[in-house]
Structure formats: structure tokens, C-alpha cells
């Protein structure tokens, strides 16, 4: 496999922006990735239609997280807040894009956040988003979870404050998605110092050796430093611990059902602190 063999080389990266600290951290990571892959950054701010609808109801009171005080929730104030957030998000994107000499674009749409993001993701090669939105929760938020599971191609989920580091962790089971994941790892490490930790997911030692040999061929062609760990099928829960003990700076995971069960994927997203790159 060579770069030319990669039909899904990442050229456009979508980043979901809502001006939250988490999304701004995601923006920085996305810019880093765009610079490494020479891709275009596409920023998208979604004005949550649910908020606007609720404001029109003129029924509810907004409770402040910091002061716990209640206040009226009307359309004018929420629109102002959303516009302000959009401006802030655009400014952050422009600043980062110009500083990194990146191609970038920015768009504001109105709708259900997850739906709009998934729709936009159809027109890009990868989506980068914060794991927990406005809260700093460790567990993945509902919007991020929906997108991570339904994103058509690459989805990269970042814990607040994390960034792409080394070594690059890769879960490999030989599936087509795993092969694409391996290629993505190759792209990420291209012309850079660092090494690859390949977590071979196999039924037994024989399959593991075979998979290792497949990876070996690729690695030799791309001149990568590599380190193998074997995980038996059924022991996927150990993957999170392995990522921690290997101190991976990013984890690339094949995210198809045949590669990893949905629960395992969600578990990994919840547990792992480094960015998780889901490849389909």
C-alpha cells in the first residue's frame, strides 16, 4: 500500500465549533492535523434550533451554571448569544488558520446540531470535535457520541486539553477499516520522528502473527519504527489500559462493527484521554 493507494486521503477536515473551550481545543488539534496532512479546515457553527424554539415558547427560565440564578429565556437574547458565539468561533478559526498558513472556510447553519454536523461531514473527509462540549466531563457527550458513531468516514474525538502526540497507537485487526487506519497512521507519521504502537487484535497467536506480518510489510515500505502488542478478541476492554500504559499520543481505531463492537468503541472514547481517531 502506498499513498497513491489511499483513495480516502484526508483533504478537508470539518471542525465543529461552538466557542466552548472544548471546541476551541478541538480547533487547535484540527489545525495541527490539517497542517500535517496539508488539508483544508472547514469550520461549522450550528445555531441550535431547539434553543430558538424554546425561546419562542416563552415558557422556560435559564439557570446559570455559575450562580444557579434563574433568568428569562427569550428569543432576542438567545439570538444575540448565538451570533456572538459564531463570531467568536470564526475569529478563532481565522486566527489559527492564518497563523498556520492553512486554507480554511467557515459556515453558520441553523438546525439540530448532530444532524447538521453529520450532513456537513458527508462533504468532508474527516470531522474533529470535542468530546464533552461545554462541560469538562470525562464521558463522551450525547452530541459527540452520535457523531462519532454515525460519521461517514474519519471522526476524531478529543478530550479537553489533549492534542496529537506520539507514539501513535493503532488498533489493527486486518479489516479494511483497519488497513485504512494503518494508512492514516502512516500519513500522520510521514517525515516525522516517532513510532507506532500497533495493538494487534486477533483470535489467537497464529492470526496475530499473520496480521503482524501484514503490518510489517507496510511499515517497512514507510520506514516506520514500530512496537507490537497483542490483544485477544474478547479482551477489548484491555485496550484502554494498554493505551494508557503505552502513553499513546493518539489512538487510531477501525470503527466498523466487524472490527470493534459499538460498546467497546464507546468504552474507549470514555476511557482514553488522548485523541481517538475513528476510521471507517
Amino acid at each position, binding site marked *: 500500500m502506498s499513498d497513491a493507494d489511499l483513495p480516502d486521503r484526508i483533504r478537508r477536515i470539518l471542525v465543529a465549533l461552538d466557542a466552548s473551550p472544548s471546541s476551541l481545543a478541538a480547533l487547535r488539534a484540527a489545525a495541527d492535523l490539517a497542517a500535517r496532512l496539508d488539508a483544508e479546515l472547514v469550520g461549522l457553527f450550528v445555531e441550535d434550533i431547539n434553543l430558538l424554539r424554546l425561546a419562542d415558547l416563552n415558557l422556560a427560565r435559564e439557570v446559570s*451554571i455559575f450562580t*444557579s440564578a434563574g433568568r428569562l429565556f427569550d428569543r432576542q437574547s438567545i439570538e444575540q448569544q448565538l451570533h456572538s458565539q459564531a463570531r467568536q468561533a470564526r475569529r478563532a478559526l481565522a486566527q489559527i488558520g492564518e497563523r498556520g498558513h492553512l486554507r480554511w472556510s467557515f459556515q453558520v447553519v441553523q438546525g439540530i446540531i448532530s444532524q447538521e454536523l453529520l450532513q456537513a461531514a458527508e462533504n468532508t473527509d474527516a470531522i474533529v470535535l470535542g468530546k464533552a462540549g461545554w462541560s469538562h466531563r470525562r464521558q463522551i457527550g450525547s452530541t459527540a457520541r452520535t457523531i462519532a458513531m454515525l460519521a461517514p468516514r474519519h471522526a476524531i474525538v478529543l478530550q479537553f486539553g489533549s492534542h496529537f502526540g506520539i507514539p501513535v497507537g493503532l488498533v489493527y485487526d486486518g479489516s479494511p477499516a483497519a488497513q485504512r487506519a494503518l494508512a492514516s497512521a502512516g500519513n500522520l507519521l510521514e517525515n516525522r520522528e516517532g513510532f507506532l504502537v500497533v495493538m494487534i487484535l486477533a483470535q489467537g497467536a497464529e492470526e496475530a502473527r499473520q496480521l503482524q506480518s501484514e503490518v510489517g510489510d507496510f511499515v517497512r515500505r514507510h520506514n516506520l519504527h514500530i512496537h507490537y502488542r497483542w490483544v485477544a478478541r474478547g479482551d477489548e476492554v484491555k485496550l484502554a489500559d494498554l493505551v494508557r500504559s503505552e502513553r499513546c499520543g493518539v489512538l487510531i481505531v477501525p470503527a466498523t462493527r466487524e472490527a470493534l463492537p459499538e460498546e467497546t468503541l464507546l468504552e474507549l472514547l470514555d476511557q482514553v484521554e488522548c485523541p481517538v481517531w475513528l476510521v471507517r
Partner: protein
Amino acid sequence: MKAVHPLEAGALYTRSDPAQFNFETTNDLPDLLENLGQPRAVEAVSFGIGMEQAGYNIFAMGPAGTGKRSLVQSHFTGRASTEETPPDWCYVYNFSQPHKPVAISLPHGLGAALRQDMDRFIEELRTTLKAAFESDEYRARRQAIEHEYQEKQEKSLEGIQQRAQEQGFILIRTPAGLVFAPSRNGEVLSPEEFQNLPEEDRKRLEANLEGLQEELQNILQTVPRLRREFQERVEALHQEITNYSVGGLVDELQRKYAGYPAVVEFLLAVRADVVQSAADFINSEEENTRSNPESLLAAMMTRNRPDQAATLKRYQVNLLVDNQGLNGAPVIYEDNPTYQNLVGRVEHIAQLGALVTDFTLIKPGSLHLANGGYLVLEARKVLSEPYAWEGLKRALRSQQVKIESLGQMLSVISTASLEPEPVPLRVKVALVGDRMLYYLLAQYDPDFEELFKVQADFDEIMERDTDNQQKYARLIATLVHRDHLRAFDRGAVARVIEHSARMVEDAERLSTEVRDIANLLRESDYWSKENGNGVVTAADVQKAIDAQIYRADRLRQRVQETILRDIFIIKTQGSEVGQINGLSVIQLGGFSFGRPSRITAKVRLGKGDVADIEREVDLSGPIHSKGVLILSGFLGSRYSQEKPLALSASLVFEQSYAGVDGDSASSAELYALLSAISRVPIKQSLAVTGAIDQNGNVQAIGGVNEKIEGFFDICNARGLTGEHGVLIPAANVKHLMLRQDVIRAVETGKFFIYPIEHVDQGIEVLTGLPAGEPDQDGKFPPDTINGKVLARLEELAKKREELEAAERRKEMGEQEDK
């Protein structure tokens, strides 16, 4: 009366015979180690050094160039080398009162060691803490705390989210908070959908919404408490990790400095502070990895947080005084004794537009550096620097150095600054200055004599005996060696000694103003380049002296020109009644020269007053006025004891447009007056200098050499006729060190110098007539000066009596008419 004879040439100049020296050049002479001509000052300095009680500081006073500073410094250095090296002084952070840094004293050399140890400690602390906070154990324990906190938070929200869902709501995050929205299938109802609900359902939803909102508010109110609990637990974890990490490092240092309680106390405070500040270290580590401030506000917030570098800086040691490598006590000369250079200062650095400081910016003053030793200061500089004198006195009085800015000292600045702990002071200070400063301070500063009990008075002259001339030759050799000059042969040495005598205007004394001698040596060396001998000869010294005079004598030349061109009238031949050549000296910086002045006297019938015209127009100084009054006293006592003087006289310095002072012209004025009264002319080929007393004795004056040379130059330029000469007080003969051309003129009988003891001798020389001795009745022979004076006075008295009688008759006649 003793007859006056002109001086022989040998009396005009006291030579220094090169033959008295048993060396060829100064290369044969060893350096002079003693301080020449200053026995009093040497003893005073030695006494001052020996007295250990407070207040026995030294004021070395005397004219500039007498070697005060070098003598004091060499004595200090000699004594300091036998004394113990004083301790080092450090400033460290005060953890309980940060604005009052603590001063720590350590045996010399240990200050630098402590500083190095603390720098190493900081470096190790950085790596140890980094490793500790990156350890799996720390991560695991921190994550456990975080997870617990997050779970508590999530659980409290999950409960309400579930209840909300059961009641037909979903919880939505807004940009600024949380809000419940009525929903169906996970989507918020539109206003139309909500309005289409049965009224009963709407009311139920609204009622439920109130309850949910209230409950949410209650939950959110617990968040700060949860967060505080979390922070406390994280902090406790940090302190545990830090305490463990730092313990070993501090223990090691504590063992090393166990003998120094102040250091141990500091180390314990450091340990407690490291543990207390654990959050700063971990915040700083996290900041380094996460932060990428994109706005000014973010940048400022980051800066306002105590960062790791600021925290670690507190553990540094500011080594204020490092006596490592010093053998014995320090001897410091402070060239620029400003207040801050003496007592030290706290520097500031600009940070975000504000001036900030800390204990590492405390800088020592020369009092710190000289502590335990000796400090030499120029008195004039100390007194001319604002508040330096006050600062020095305060330090000496309180025997401690307290660093205060001038603003603090004057209470004009109340901004927060440091108040470093004062350092105990034990120092011997020597102030070097001229005598006037000493006497002014002694007179007007009540603290001065308490703090500077030892006066070392430096003499500017020394006796010119054989032994001292030998020593002077060694002094010259020492200066030649010091300045790497060509060797001086003994003729040159002798010439320098002669010039030294001329410098102090005394053939029997020598100058101790080493600076001027050193200048002459250097300049002689310069002129000797061309002589081809490789050594400096007497001719080179003479050339240097001549060149010095030439460089300075522009004004003298102008004055002489105006006389020679008869603009300024000075007669040097013939005779005149009531006119005489007086002599004065003009001082211009370090150069002085003599100038003749024409003094005239006029008499008329009067009431016995002698008018000094200079005094009448305020051009006369008090000493000159005194001289004129003395000569009035002489006239009265000699010629008019029984009856009042019947004349009025006026005296004037002709063509004098500036002030006149000094009494050296009083004899000349008297001669002019006697000539005017007696109508006997005075020889204009002579000039006169000398003060008189009321008995007519002629007394010594200053500048005799310059005065003689000044008149000689005029006569010489007009052509010496064998009649020219100068009358000087006999007491000044021992001061004569005249120029060689004057001496040659005397030798050849073309110029004469008369030593005068009494005015009667002088008037005889000036008029060629005998002065006249009084007979038994007090009458003088008629053909003598005194006889003629007396006769004229009697004539005037008679005229006055006749006039008075006529007036009386006239008055009586007028009364009878009435």
C-alpha cells in the same frame, strides 16, 4: 641703625648640590616605603586604626596632592592583611513577611556555597517534582479524585435529567446555562405544537417545569461545594507528593548547614513553602502543556497566576557580600559615594508597566562590602551627594546598614517596597578632604566629632635638611619607578628638589605635594626624549618647568606688555616725589606672578587724617586698610607725639581697577608718604615690598620671588642700568629661590636686592639721603629725611595755627559787630 647692603647672589637661591647624592641615577635607589614629611598624619592614622571603639573613624585632611588617600589606603591595606576575613552576607526570602528579606551571615566562602546549593536544589526540585507529577501513581490518584467528582456531578444531573424526561422535558445547554425544554421524541416542541396541547397538559407541564427548575437550581448550588472539596483533595494530594519529593533534598542540605541555625531555619521554611505551593508547580506544568492563550485577557490571567519560576525564585539566595577569595579584611575605596552606593539599594524591574522588585534585586553598598574592614571616601564627594553624608552618619551611629530608598527615607514615597533586615556594621571609615571641610564640619555638625574622632593632618611642607633631601631623592625614585619613567640623574633630582623648595616659597622647606612633583617628573620625562641620554637631566627638568610657566603665563605676558608700552605707567628710571613702585602678586590657578604698581601720595594742610583712596571707594580689603592705619600710627608716634598732625594725606594705587588687599604694600605707601611730606624724590629704578608695624619695622610678606621677578622682567626688558633693584623684608631672605637670570644680573651688578629691617633703612636706599637719628630732644638733623619730614610737619602745624588764630579773630570781630 645698621647700614643696608644688597644681597650676594649666593643668598638668592639655595642650591641642592648633586654631589651630596651617592647615586648616579634613580635606578640605583630603592623605593621609599615610609611616608615622607608626614609623621603627624602617620601617627594619627595608626592610632585611628588601632582604636577599636566606635567613633574612632579618621578624617585625613590637608591640601590636595599630599598623598592623603594613598597613605590611608596603604596603612589600611597593611593592617587588613593581618586581620580575619569577615563573613559573607546573604539575603533570603522571608516566608512570613515577604517584604522583609532576612539577612544571613555565614563564614566567608560559605555564602557562595549556599547560593550554589540552593540553585542546585531548585534545579533538582524542578525535575523531582516534574517526575513526581508525571508518575503513574500521581496520575492514577488524581484521576480517581477527578472521576469521583465528575461522577458526583453527573449523577446529580442525571437524576434530574431522568425526572425531566419522565415529565416530558429535556435538559438543554445554552451558551450561558441550562434550560428545560418541553419535548417529544427528543425534539423541542415548537410554539405551535405546545399551543396545540390540551390545556390540562400545558398546565401540568408548566407546573412540573417550576419544580424542575427549582430542583436544578438547588443542584447547581451544590456545585461550588463539590468543586471546593475536589480542590482540597487535589491540593492534599499535591502536598503529599511534594512533601515526599522535597524531603530528601532538604534533609541533605540541613545536614550540611547544621551548624548555622539561620540557614536551617530558612531551609525548614523552604520545605514548608514548597509543600504549600505544590499547586503552583502542577499548575505551571499543566500550563506549559495546555495553554495557548489567544487573547490579551488570557495572557494576563496566565501572568497573574503565581508561576513556577516565581515560586522557585523564592528559594534562591542573594549573595550580597561574597568574601570568598579575600585574604584578610576588605579595604574599599568608593569613588562615587552616592547615598545608594554607600548603603545599598533595592532595584526594580518593569513588568507590564509597573515597577516590581524582590529580594534578589537587593544590591550591596560600599558599607556592606567594607563591613569588617576599611572604607575610604572623599569627603567633598560625600558631602556633595544628596543625603550621602546623612546615610553614612546614620550607619556609623547605629552600627548597622539599613537599605532604604531615598523616597522611603524622606517619607515621600509610600509604595510597597522591600525593607531588608539591617546588617550589623563594623567598619573603619577614613574621610579624605581639605582642612576647610574638616573645620566646617567640626563647627557646624554636632555628630561629626562623635563619629570622626581622629584627625590626621597632612602637612604641605617639610624641612629641607640633608637627611630629608636624601629621602626626597628616594621619593623621586619611587615615583619614577611607579610611573615607569626614564631614570633621573642626580643633577635632575637636585633640580627637582630645588623646584620643590620654590613651590613652597621657602629655601629651607620642601613641598610634600607629591602630585605636583609627580607631574613635573612625568613632564621632564617627556622633554628628555630628545636629549639622547636615555636619562632625565637637570636641563630636562628646567625645560619642563619653563614649559609649565609658558603654558600658564599668557596673562603675565599681557600685563608686562601693557607696562612696556607705557599704557600701564611704571617708571623705572629717574626720581619722583611722592611716587613709588609697589609690588603685588596675581594668583591664577596654580600659577602666580608679580606685577609692579605705581603708588602715589599727596599731602596738604589738614587735620591729621591719611585717606586711603582705595578704601574710600571700597576697592580695599580689610588687611590693606589695616596697613594704612598702621602707617598713620607710625607717622603720629614718630613725628607728632606732642601735638596733632596738621596734614591730610591721600594714598592711591594708580591705574588699579580691581580690589587691593594685603599689607605688603604698607611700607611702600609709607615711603611714598614720607617722600611727599619731605619733598625728597624717590628713585624709580627701585621697587618695594614689605609690611610695617607701628614702630616702622619691616615684616615678612608672601610671594617674594614672584614680586622680585615681576619687577626684574620689566627692568630687564627696558635694559638694566645697574641702578635697578628691589627692597624686600629681611625676614624674607630665607624664602628666596629666584630664577637664574635674576641671579646672573645680581652677580654682574646690574640688579640689587636689599634686605630691609626698618623703614629708615629703606628710605635711605630709596632717596640716597640718610634717614636721621633723633637727638636728645627728639629733633632730627635738618639734612636727613626725618629732619625734612619733621620740618615740613612743623611748617604745616604753624600754618594751621595761624589759620586758626585768624579764624578766631574773625569770629570775635563778627560778634563785636553784632
